[in-house]
């Protein structure tokens, strides 16, 4: 069994949650948020994780994950609202063991 990682997620109401995310189920940050229902269904992961809607935009609050965006993610964020330097799309961050202790905040609805 691979280890779960602990991730700290602040929801859109400002509440901070500590959640356990499995590293062996090919999940990403957007899916973890959905599986814990930390954002209302229908307001996150709308495109299913294709980096095509920015509904899973997150602000990365510590240096556990790189702020470097992949090209599709970057292009989507050019057109999104509320984008900051530390914005990433949750669907483009796979859950790996390196993510232990990641702290992030879900961006407002688009």
């Amino acid at each position, binding site marked *: 069994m691979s280890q779960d990682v602990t991730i700290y997620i602040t929801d859109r109401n400002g509440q901070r949650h500590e959640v356990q995310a499995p590293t062996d189920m090919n999940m990403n940050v957007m899916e973890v948020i959905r599986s814990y229902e930390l954002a*209302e*269904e*229908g*307001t996150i992961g*709308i*495109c299913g994780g*294709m980096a*095509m*809607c920015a*509904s899973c935009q997150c602000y990365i609050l510590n240096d556990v994950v790189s702020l470097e965006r992949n*090209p*599709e993610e970057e*292009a*989507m964020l*050019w*057109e999104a609202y509320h984008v900051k330097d530390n914005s990433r799309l949750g669907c483009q961050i796979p859950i790996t063991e390196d993510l232990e202790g990641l702290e992030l905040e879900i961006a407002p609805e*688009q």
Partner: protein
Amino acid sequence: MIETDILIIGAGPTGLFAVFEAGLLKLKCHIIDGLPQPGGQLTELYPKKPIFDIPGFPSVLAGDLVNNLMEQIKQFQPGFTLGEVAEKIQKLDDGTFIVTTNKGTEHKAKAVAIAGGLGSFEPRKPILKDLEFYELEDRGVEYFVKDPEKYRGKRVVISGGGDSALDWSIFLSNVASEVTLVHRRNEFRGALDSVEKVQELKHAGKIRLITPGEVIGFKGSERIESVDIEVNGARMNVETDYFIPLFGLTPKLGPIAHWGLEIEKNAIVVNNALDYQTNIEGIYAIGDVNTYPGKLKLILCGFHEATLMCQSVYNKLNPGKKYVLKYTTVSGVDGFDGSRKEAEKAVVKAIE
């Protein structure tokens, strides 16, 4: 007034397949969809992306799946009201329904199947002063290119950096007198052939490209006369007849949220896996738009739900009538257009 047996709201894969299953039971369907073309998310969001979990298709492009479904239901002659959003529903005393769209088109049906997916797609709008004024009837701001002929000989400014901005710029470059494409970045995100085509048209002088740029305002007293564009901190003014911002679409449950249906987590609650009827008799919800314990938002589950819904409507409309499930291989498919598809008969012949 358009009359039908089952009125389907949503022309995505689930709604389209429902036409087939209804047709086998001799029920006619009509489909309403807010987008100008059938296919829902599949054509609007990811037509060129593959899907790997459609049974029997190791891989199928979303756009091809929609084309196949359209071909599959053709003989059942579904009606379409496209580019209009189902807005109001009225249940009559005889149990039938009247559904009216935002454009006032009325549909009368014996049953309603909401196959609305994530909801109706609404355009993401730029944040601009006076946008509401210029959005009104033919004042120059449009979010969809519904009728390209409208732009013949006109000047058009398109804004956006994705496939639809690229594709419409390419298309309108042959229709409009002038096409200007404005995007916040030099880089575009789209299919490679679209990006290359725009590059070509730019060099040929058929598309004027303004990057990195952003439309920041309008001029025009009655309707749009020009747009102000910020380019690298400087400002320029471009005369135009139309401004078409194409910043993508976001789905919203929309008017169906106010039809008195039980809603949970932005989805319509149905009677768990029996026939997907909602709390209002005669209104069904199938595909991604519904929820019940164990719900999975998969196209293949939508197909199953559509099938059960059709059986339920049949039983409701023909109470007590004997019916047994038919296999298409055995019974063939009789279209409403008079066509018949059937398996080739085996021969009974001695081999000597």
